[in-house]
C-alpha cells in the first residue's frame, strides 16, 4: 500500500490557484464594486468552492493509494465514494514523464501510464513523484514476466542502485535517431507561423502612434503626409518583424530545443522541452500506423510532421504539443528515414500510383454542398463587408475558387500503393497527409460508390484502425480495379495474423 508523494497536495493547490486566478481577479478586483447578483453570490460560491477543493485535496491524499502485485496496479480513490480499479501492466500502451517548472523546483517529476481501456480508469497518473520512484515504477512496468520474481527481490534493495542500473541499461541499447540542430530550429520557428504575430502587433502600434502622425493636410499637403507616415510604417514594421522573429525563435527553442527521438529494440522514446520537460515512451508493437502531415506552409519549406497512431487515448490537457507527434518540422526525406529507422517493418515507397484524369473530372463535377449552403445564406442576407455592396457574390466566388483549388490539389496529392502487407497513401488538398499502416492493423475496410462515381467507375475506400477515437482514413475517387485489388489484398489478412483462442 503506497501513498502518493506528499507534495502532491502543494502541486494540486498550485494548479487550483493557476486555474482559479482569472476568475478570482475578476470577482474580487476588477468587478469588486459591482452588486450584480451573479457576481455577488459568485464571490461566496467561489470562496466556498475553493475551500471545499482545498479540503478535498488534503483529504484525498490520505485516501488515495496505490499498490502493485504481480502484474497489476491497484488504484484506490474517493473521499466519499470508494473506488478501486485494477490495471494490468500488459494494458499499458505508453508512458509519459512530464517535468514542469514546479517539479524542477523540488527535483520531482510526474508520470502517466496510458492504457487503451475505455472509461475513466484508462490512465494511471502520478502527478508528483520522486525521480527515483519514477524510475522504479518504469522498471516495474517494463519487465518481462519471467523477471518478476527477481524484481520483487530487488524491491527491498536500495532504490538508488536500481536507478543507476536502469540508466546504464538505457545508455547501452538506445539508438538516437534525431536531435534538431540550431539550423533546424531556426527553420522551424519560421514555419510555425509564430512570425504572423506581427500583424496584431503592427496594427496595435499603429493605433498607438497614429495621434503623433503629422495631422497636416491643411498646410503640408497629402503627399507629404503619406511619405512621412510611410517611413514610420516601414520603421515600425521592421521593429515588429524583429520582435516577432525573436518571440518565434524563443518559443520554438523552448518547445523543440533539447528534442531527442531515440529507440530501443522494443520502444520509441521522445524527449523534449527546455523548461517543461517531457519524456514519452511507447512500445513499438502498439503502434497502429503512421501519419505524415504537411500543411501548406510546411510543404513550401519541404517540412513535415510525423505522427504515431496508437490505441492509447491521448491525455492532451497539460501538453502544449501532442504526445503522439514525433517532431513537427522534419525535412520530408528525413521523415521517411526516421520512420523506417524507428519501425523497420515499415517501408516508405516514393513511387506510388496516381489518380487518372477521370478522377479529376469527378472531383470537379461533384457538387460542393458546403459552397451551396454558404452561397444560399449569402444570397439571402446579402451582407455588406468592407463597405462593398457586391461583397456577397465576391465572397461566394472566392469560396468557390478555394473549393476548386483544394480539389485540384487533392487530385495532385493523391497517391496510393499496397505492397506485401502494407498500405500507404497520400491525400488531401491544402493540408496533405500520408497514411501508412499494416494489413493486420486495419480492423475493418469498406468502400462506397455514389451515383456519380458509378458513371466514372471510381470508388472511395475507407480503412479503420484502432485508436481513440477510431481512426478512419478515406481515399476518394480511386479506380474500381484498385478497390477490387484492395479488397482482395485485405481478404488475405490471415497471412499476417496469428490467432489465439479467446478464453
Amino acid at each position, binding site marked *: 500500500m503506497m501513498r502518493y508523494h506528499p507534495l502532491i497536495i502543494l502541486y494540486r493547490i498550485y494548479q487550483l490557484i493557476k486555474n482559479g486566478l482569472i476568475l478570482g481577479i475578476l470577482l474580487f478586483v476588477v468587478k469588486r464594486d459591482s452588486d450584480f447578483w451573479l457576481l455577488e453570490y459568485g464571490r461566496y460560491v467561489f470562496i466556498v468552492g475553493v475551500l471545499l477543493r482545498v479540503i478535498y485535496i488534503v483529504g484525498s491524499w490520505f485516501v488515495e493509494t496505490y499498490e502493485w502485485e504481480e502484474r497489476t496496479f491497484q488504484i484506490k480513490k474517493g473521499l466519499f465514494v470508494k473506488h478501486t480499479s485494477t490495471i494490468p501492466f500488459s494494458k499499458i500502451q505508453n508512458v509519459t514523464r512530464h517535468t514542469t517548472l514546479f517539479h524542477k523546483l523540488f527535483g520531482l517529476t510526474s508520470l502517466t501510464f496510458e492504457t487503451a481501456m475505455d472509461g475513466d480508469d484508462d490512465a494511471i497518473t502520478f502527478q508528483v513523484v520522486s525521480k527515483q520512484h519514477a524510475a522504479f515504477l518504469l522498471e516495474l512496468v517494463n519487465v518481462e514476466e519471467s523477471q518478476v520474481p527477481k524484481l520483487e527481490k530487488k524491491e527491498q534493495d536500495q532504490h538508488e542502485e536500481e536507478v543507476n542500473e536502469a540508466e546504464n541499461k538505457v545508455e547501452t541499447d538506445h539508438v538516437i535517431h534525431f536531435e534538431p540542430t540550431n539550423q533546424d530550429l531556426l527553420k522551424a520557428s519560421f514555419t510555425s507561423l509564430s512570425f504572423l504575430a506581427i500583424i496584431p502587433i503592427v496594427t496595435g502600434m499603429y493605433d498607438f502612434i497614429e495621434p503623433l502622425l503629422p495631422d497636416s493636410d491643411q498646410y503640408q499637403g497629402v503627399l507629404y503626409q503619406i511619405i512621412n507616415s510611410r517611413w514610420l510604417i516601414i520603421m515600425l514594421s521592421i521593429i515588429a518583424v524583429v520582435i516577432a522573429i525573436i518571440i518565434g525563435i524563443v518559443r520554438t527553442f523552448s518547445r523543440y530545443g533539447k528534442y531527442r527521438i531515440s529507440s530501443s529494440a522494443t520502444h520509441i522514446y521522445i524527449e523534449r522541452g527546455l523548461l517543461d520537460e517531457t519524456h514519452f515512451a511507447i512500445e513499438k508493437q502498439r503502434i497502429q500506423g503512421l501519419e505524415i502531415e504537411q500543411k501548406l506552409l510546411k510543404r513550401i519549406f519541404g517540412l513535415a510532421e510525423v505522427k504515431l497512431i496508437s490505441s492509447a487515448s491521448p491525455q492532451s490537457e497539460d501538453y502544449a504539443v501532442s504526445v503522439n507527434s514525433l517532431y513537427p518540422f522534419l525535412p520530408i526525406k528525413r521523415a521517411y528515414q526516421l520512420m523506417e529507422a524507428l519501425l523497420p517493418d515499415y517501408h516508405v515507397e516514393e513511387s506510388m500510383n496516381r489518380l487518372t484524369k477521370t478522377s479529376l473530372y469527378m472531383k470537379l463535377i461533384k457538387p460542393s454542398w458546403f459552397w451551396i449552403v454558404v452561397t444560399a445564406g449569402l444570397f439571402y442576407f446579402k451582407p455588406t463587408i468592407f463597405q462593398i455592396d457586391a461583397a456577397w457574390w465576391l465572397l461566394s466566388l472566392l469560396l468557390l475558387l478555394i473549393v476548386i483549388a483544394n480539389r485540384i490539389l487533392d487530385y495532385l496529392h493523391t497517391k496510393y500503393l499496397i505492397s506485401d502487407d502494407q498500405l500507404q497513401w497520400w491525400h488531401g488538398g491544402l493540408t496533405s497527409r500520408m497514411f501508412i499502416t499494416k494489413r493486420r492493423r486495419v*480492423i*475493418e475496410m*469498406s468502400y462506397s460508390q455514389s451515383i456519380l462515381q458509378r458513371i466514372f467507375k471510381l470508388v472511395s475506400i475507407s480503412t479503420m484502425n484502432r485508436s481513440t477515437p477510431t481512426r*478512419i482514413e478515406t481515399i476518394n475517387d480511386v479506380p474500381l480495379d484498385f478497390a477490387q485489388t484492395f479488397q482482395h489484398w485485405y481478404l488475405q489478412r490471415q497471412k499476417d495474423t*496469428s490467432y*489465439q*483462442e479467446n478464453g
Partner: protein
Amino acid sequence: MNELEHRLSSKFPKARIISETISNIIGFIVLAVLFWLGYYFDWPAWANWILIGLLLIAVVGTIWSFIEPHYLYRSWRYQIDIEYLQLRYGVLTKEWVTVPMSKIQSVSTSQGPIMRAYQMRSIKVETMGSSHVIPALEEQVALELRARIAELAKLKEVDE
C-alpha cells in the same frame, strides 16, 4: 466482383414501407405543428423558408420511401465465412464492408412490433470502432446467424 451469398428476407420491403410510412406520418404532423406555430407567433420570413424547404424534402422523401425498399432489398447481400463478415448494400450510394471475424466484439438480434408481425429479426454486429446492421432476416435464419457469428468471433488475434 463475385456476388455474396445471402439476401435479406423477401418480406423486408413490405415491413420497411410500413415502418417508413409511420415515421413519415409523424414527421408531417411535426411539420404541420411547426407551420402553425410559425403562423401563430409570426416567425421571420427565413424561418418560413426553412419550413418550406423541409416540406419539400419531406414530400420527396415520402415518395422515395415507397420506391427505395424494393431496390434496397435487391441490393442487399451478406456473407460470412471463418474469417470475414461481408456486407454489400445501397441504392444510390453502394457500400461494401469487410469486417474480420476476430474484430467483432458483440452480436445481437432485435425485433420491433412490425418485425414481430412479419416474424423477422435484425442483427447488429459491433466491432471496436463501428457497428453494422443486417436489417431483416427470417427469425430462424437470424438466430442461427447470431450463434454462428458469436462462435466465429471467439478467435482473438495475438498482440492486442
